[in-house]
């Protein structure tokens, strides 16, 4: 380094040259280390610039020197950012993975819910949205609640031990969720809006498409001025919740001891859209359960005045609904519980 006697006079010349030399050295620094060397050389305590600043006497020279220092400093910062970004970019490129691959040991093992539960929740949520209470009820019933209070005539086939599991003369495994209608109506005055879900039992032989135990959901509404149209609208809502907004629902006359009129809802076949296929037995429609307006006799049995109150009830199989939702052709997988099947859900 050379000493200068009169900084004031040489500064103007030197500063411009110095700045341009510094800026080009900084811009071409290939690494962070080289950049640091350049920074020390042009901005360090012993740099020409710092020495000139220390020796400055007049305001004009000071201003010129400081402006140069600021420009060099910001060039260093900029170059440092550039070099760091490039280094990060290189590091990230080096870490690149085949994102389509998952290797053993990396996965999180999740269990699954049974399709019956998945469908049960859809039903529960549909009814909660309509302002219904969700209940569960006992499965071992008295014949009084399972048959008598539901106005089953004495010769109804369901009363036969050929159709129903009897524990003894007075106790049966409930054949439908309907006894819970009676329990609720006995327990509280109308209005009532409830849906009951749970297992029911029928004496069916075990086949790929039948099992003597299955799940049902059963709804009951009791209020003033409920109509058949309200029942149709309610079932339409539930069927669409289960099978999609585009589903059509039709109703057919049927007979149940505890409803009058009794109807059966059919949902348009989601597989063939009414064209007819194996799932819908070539009718375009799939039977979804039973429904009807509560028979006045049932109201009288539980002490509700049928001239003041009306109601409707309906029941559907949950496995059957799950079969249709998920395209499960048989009942067997529901009870086999093979993880290869369950893990699909």
């Amino acid at each position, binding site marked *: 380094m050379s000493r200068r006697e009169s900084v004031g006079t040489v500064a103007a010349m030197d500063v411009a040259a110095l700045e341009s030399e510094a800026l080009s050295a900084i811009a071409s620094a290939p690494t962070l280390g080289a950049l640091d060397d350049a920074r020390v050389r042009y901005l360090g305590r012993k740099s020409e610039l710092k020495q000139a600043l220390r020796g400055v006497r007049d305001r004009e020279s000071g201003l010129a020197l400081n402006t140069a220092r600021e420009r060099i400093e910001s060039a260093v910062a900029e170059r440092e950012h550039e070099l760091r970004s490039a280094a990060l970019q290189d590091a990230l490129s080096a870490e690149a993975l085949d994102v389509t691959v998952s290797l053993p040991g990396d996965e999180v093992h999740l269990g699954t819910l049974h399709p019956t539960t998945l469908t049960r929740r859809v039903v529960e949520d549909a009814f909660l949205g309509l302002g219904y209470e969700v209940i569960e009820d006992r499965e*071992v019933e008295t014949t009084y609640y399972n048959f008598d209070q539901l106005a089953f005539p004495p010769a109804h086939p369901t009363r036969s031990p050929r159709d129903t599991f009897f524990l*003894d003369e007075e106790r049966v495994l409930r054949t439908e969720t309907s006894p819970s209608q009676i329990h609720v109506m006995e327990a509280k005055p109308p*209005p009532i809006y409830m849906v009951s879900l749970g297992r029911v039992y029928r004496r*069916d032989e075990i086949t790929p498409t039948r099992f003597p135990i299955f799940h049902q959901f059963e709804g009951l509404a009791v209020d003033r001025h409920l109509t058949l149209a309200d029942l149709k609208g309610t079932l339409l809502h539930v069927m669409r919740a289960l099978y999609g907004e585009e589903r059509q629902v039709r109703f057919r*006359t049927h007979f149940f001891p505890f409803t009058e009129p009794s109807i059966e809802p059919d949902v348009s076949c989601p597989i063939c859209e009414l064209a007819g296929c194996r799932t819908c037995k070539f009718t375009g429609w799939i039977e979804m359960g039973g429904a009807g307006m509560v028979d006045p006799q049932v109201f009288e049995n539980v002490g509700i005045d049928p001239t003041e109150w009306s109601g409707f009830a309906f029941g559907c199989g949950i496995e059957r609904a799950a079969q249709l939702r998920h395209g499960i052709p048989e009942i067997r997988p529901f009870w086999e519980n093979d993880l290869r099947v369950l893990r699909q859900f």
Partner: protein
Amino acid sequence: MKVPLSWLRDYVPLDMPVEQLADRLAVSTAVVAAIDRRGVPDVDGNLDLFRVGRVVEAGKHPNADRLQLCHVDVGESEPYQIVCGAWNFGTGATVAVALPGATLPGGLTLERRKLRGEISEGMILSERELELGPDHTGILVLDRGEPGTPLSDLLPLQEIVLDLEITGNRPDLLSVYGVAREVAVGFRLELSPPPGRDPEPAGSERVDVAVEDLDGCPRYVGRLFRDVRIGPSPLWLRARLTAAGMRPISNVVDVTNYVMLDLGNPLHAFDFDALGGERIVVRRARPGEELRTLDGAVRQLDSCDLMIADAERSVALAGIMGGEETEVTESTTNVLLEAANFEPSGLWRTSERLRLRTEGSNRWEKGVDPYLAETAAVLGTELIVDLTGARWVGHTDVKGDLPRRPVVSYRPEYASTSMGLEVDPVEQYDILARLGLEREDGMQTVPTWRARDLTREVDLVEEVARFKLEDVPFTLPVRREMTGRLSHEQRLRRRIEDTLAALGLSEVCTPSLAREDADPEALRLPEPISVELAVLRTSLLPNLIETARRNLEVGNERIALFEIARVYLPRGADLPDERVRVAGVTEGGFARVKAVVEALQRTLKAPARYERGAHALLHPGKTAVIEAGILGELHPTVLEGQWGGFELDLVALADAAEEPVQYADVITYPAVRQDLAFVVPLDVSAGALAEVAREAAGPELRELQTFDVYRGAPIRADRKSIAFRVEFQSPERTLSDEDAARLRQRIVDALAERFDAELRG
């Protein structure tokens, strides 16, 4: 109920496509299980290839002893040569012929071909080949028809049969005429009057019928026929019975079946000469009595069973099945026709006890109109006289007080309101009138055939509603209150399901009934359908273990299962105590299952106290009980490998759950962390130490976690070391070193006093 459309047309003019008929009936009346197209396939020009033929020459086939070689005039310029295997006809016979190219019922298409060296141009048909009857012993010999006439002019070559599933409340629909009435209402068609007209009686013999039990048999019409010639029925009758799914037998028996199908009233024919004392007595069975029924079985009778007897013994199970000894046979010449009415419930009990159901019992047990007996007797008489050449010589009609026709008040505006659809009263009255109701002022008189199921206004509303179902709109109830929500338990159940699934357990659904149960008192089905489904379970674990085993056998990996379901704890003769349980089985031992249960407790905010427990399916040294249930490592003899299992009561879990969770300030003042290790006797559990420590330190002990259990030097052999990490924290102030020391001392003192625990230096 199988309803051939050609038969239905006897009563209503049908011109709509069958699909439309089926759709309408399905909505208003009964499930249409099938539309069965029988007979000659309806493909282009096929029907024209079925002709009447006349055999102009018939003789033995030159190369086959069992075959005939025939020349048959089928209305073409030259006779056709046809080889035939039947011998029940000869030259001059009028026969049914299918020409080459014809497709037979069943799909076989005929070709001109050589049979044993002789050309055969088509086929001479039997009734079975045309699906008109079961007979294939010989070909069908016609009694009329000119050669070349289309066969379809003479015979019902094509038939469409509706298979309807009739509900138990509508025995009137177990008849073609009853279905015709529904069609007439649905399509507003004219319904013909019921069939049958009495012929002139050919005598006035006494028919001796005594009904001892008018409750069980409110009506008994007996008619006597002499000079009956038993033989096959004519083809039209055989074809109708066949299409309706019944097997033709002989003319008299076929008539009884035909009338049953046509009108819904089962009939029975007795060989009059086989009736002791030429007498019918309707009575209950005598003690020890037995009867050999038509199916050959000997039935042990009960004093509740209603019997048809003669002067000496029972000859038929009333309404269910006749007896073998009085059966109409080929040699019968005198017939007593029974057109009776039987009360449903007694008959149902008998058929139930004997496990014997017939077309007849199926109708009686639903309640047949007693007024129908006479109509059925008339039609039966007309047909027997027509078809057998018999003389009708006697009649009796024994009856009790037949039920009156119900008179029901009916308000069309009430019907509209309860349907949620405004229906013009004129249309409502029209529907009811077509169904046979008679209106006077505001009252409707119900026809006899609906007297059992139409007794109230609401029943009549249904009659109108079922024909208007498609017009009823879709609405939702107008409500003043809406209060649907899941209960605490229901919400927790969902959280448990989701948590267990997130922990890797898959939900299963196993039967409530098991082969055996650990509880000897568990409720047992007296008549299970299989030994596997016999006892109502008192625990979910056995089925879960079984399910894990099956998954293991098929090679599945990472087996972890759970189920939420009921168990049925016996309470003597009362209904069982049904508890909802959550149970699981998972790969991995005690540590794994405890981690799962603890995760459940954390998600529910339901802390629990663990104690040593015991369970037959669990490892005796690796079983814990908590208030809600049990968990542990599966006993090594139960399932190969290391497994954990748990079974918890859902209500107990829900009761223990803190909801809503209460906030604690864990931020403002810092926590003081310390590790404490205690040397204790071997039988002291970490759980017991923790519990006493918590009690001693009070709420300022915020966390206490076991992190090490150690046995070995330098600790005495009869002792072990248990190390805890503790956190002291107060929501109100910063704890000083002195505070922490004081809390720690309380723990040390309490553990020393209770467990002889020494703090390790």
